[in-house]
């Protein structure tokens, strides 16, 4: 049966998360999962389904609805010899635990003169598009990218979801893995074995010649659609998925802009003060002489995420808005 090739396994994004968590629990004896509804229910989005059965109650724990307590548990346990995975059901709930994230988890190592390591991984869910309204739909990555001591990654594909979770758990720093709820059903290739994606390395998901689009999170997929539309206008867009926002792979982006001379940054988060402002600013500082136009930015308008599908569709950036912004920048 020489020609019988093993077909690559495909999984939805949600199952890739599970696969990543499973790989971590297998390879690290001192790893465990804590979070709201994670054990008995398998998580509100189901990505812990089967973990309790496979690993038993010593490795996954339901917690009270106590986000500050959960993050504090992650800090204390990671400082004392464990490698916890803590689950924050929605990124919006960071408001409930920002002290533990910002003042304890991010800073403890520095404050202690480097004499503690905090190998804690936090999984959390961002993203609009499900009519979950203003408190369950936000993309707040800018809050945490502003905090020295944290690493922040945003997987956009099933492959990246598994690989980045494994990398996060192997890292000796607090890493926040920002997942996207609208991507949970997306199918993609996910190898059986454990693999890591280096944190801090961007992925050029579509090479192109004369336009750079830096797309954050789920906007990668919208950027790819936009790139197809832009082809008809003679624009060959290069789409870059940074995957890691902190640390940020500036070099890859700058190198691309040096080649394309134009750039646009797109994210779901509110445009004002979003991570796109930082990226645009860096491009302008480091590649100013290569730029033929100011760096464009696409993001959500300056309002809370609305509930009604009619309003929400207008709120979340998409391929059409990316194309429109490119055209505006090019004057076409």
């Amino acid at each position: 049966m020489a020609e019988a090739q093993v077909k690559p396994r495909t999984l939805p994004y949600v199952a890739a998360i599970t696969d990543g968590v499973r790989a971590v629990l297998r390879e690290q004896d001192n790893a465990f999962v804590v979070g709201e509804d994670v054990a008995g229910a398998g998580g509100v989005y189901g990505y812990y389904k089967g973990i309790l059965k496979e690993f038993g109650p010593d490795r996954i724990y339901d917690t009270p609805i106590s986000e500050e307590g959960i993050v504090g548990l992650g800090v204390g346990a990671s400082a004392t010899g464990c490698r916890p995975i803590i689950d924050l059901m929605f990124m919006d709930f960071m408001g409930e635990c920002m002290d533990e994230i910002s003042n304890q988890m991010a800073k403890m190592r520095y404050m202690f003169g480097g004499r503690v390591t905090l190998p804690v991984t936090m999984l959390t869910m961002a993203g609009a598009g499900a009519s979950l309204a203003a408190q369950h739909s936000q993309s707040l990555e800018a809050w945490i990218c502003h905090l020295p001591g944290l690493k922040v990654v945003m997987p956009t594909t099933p492959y990246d979801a598994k690989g980045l979770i494994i990398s996060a758990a192997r890292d000796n720093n607090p890493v926040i893995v920002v997942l996207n709820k609208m991507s949970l059903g997306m199918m993609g290739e996910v190898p059986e074995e454990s693999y890591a994606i280096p944190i801090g390395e961007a992925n050029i998901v579509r090479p192109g010649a004369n336009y750079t689009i830096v797309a954050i999170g789920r906007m990668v997929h919208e950027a790819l659609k936009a790139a197809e539309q832009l082809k008809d206008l003679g624009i060959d867009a290069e789409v870059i998925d940074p995957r890691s926002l902190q640390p940020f792979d500036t070099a890859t982006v700058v190198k691309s802009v040096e080649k394309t001379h134009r750039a646009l940054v797109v994210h779901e988060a509110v445009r004002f003060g979003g991570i796109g402002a930082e990226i645009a600013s860096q491009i302008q500082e480091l590649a100013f002489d290569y730029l033929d136009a100011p760096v464009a930015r696409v993001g959500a308008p300056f309002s809370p995420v609305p509930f009604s599908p009619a309003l929400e569709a207008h709120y979340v950036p998409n391929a059409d808005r990316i194309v429109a912004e490119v055209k505006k920048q090019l004057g076409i």
Partner: protein
Amino acid sequence: MEQITDATLLDIHRRMIRIRIFEETAGKLMEDGKIPGALHLYVGQEAIASAVMVHLSNKDWITSTHRGHGHLIAKGGEFDQMFAELYGKATGYCKGKGGSMHISNLDLGMLGANGIVGGGPPIAVGAGFSNKFRKTDNVSVSFFGDGASNEGSFHEAANMAGLYKLPVIFICENNGYGEYTAQKNHQAIVDVADRAAGYGMPGVIVDGMDAIAVFEAAGEAIKRARAGEGPTLLECKTYRYFDHVGVRGMGLSYRTDEEVEQWRKRDPIESLEKRLADQGILSPEAAQAVHDEVRTQVQDSVRFAEQSPMPDPSTLLEDVYAA
């Protein structure tokens, strides 16, 4: 209940003296402008840290507060590295990056002073969870104040400790003030121990000015935690001689001098020394010798700190991340 031995009494006594003289010296150095920033001094509360810590090993964790020097000293902290840290020197416990409010030493099981009121309890729960997960018989002890008992973090942490029956001891050092606000103006109850029932754990009160009473009560709570019987809330009634920040203790607008004098009459060091003398365990002369010896150590360590180098600016960006 564990009977206290002479050796333990002398150990507690020495820890209390070490805290008292360290703190009085540090306060003066701050007033003289030699130590930068803000110090929250532990004077008056020495019995608590000292009598709890004699029950713990370096593998037992503690979390502390903004008033954290006493906890670190009682846990075995060295004066050299402590003064150096307060001075912001490279030889300090935190290489000059934490200062008074973040002073720590994980080798001693001390998970840091904490500049956030209520910052400690969730971390102590994490350490207690870790102890249980790693199947050790170690405990974690969270020191916090009456003020912190109003923070949500305390309530979340206490609930989780009760839920998972963690080996955590919550030690409330109730000194009657949350920063500059008297307890009667910041909470509807007087006994923080009353809150324990809400989290499925026993809550007990002990005189925090009496080292032997603290030793006995803390010993029971720690024994219970080591045996897997879960957390305890132990409230120690105590008093802060000095101001919330710095030294000045008298002539303050938010408390009376008479109140301070009342509490000073129950000074934990004086009352312990009297009983040690009564029982023939430590003569007043021998007690004085401990004071003198510690004072010399403090002076030597201040000199060490003053002669230590400042951190090189090149180290500014070190220790943000681990490799």
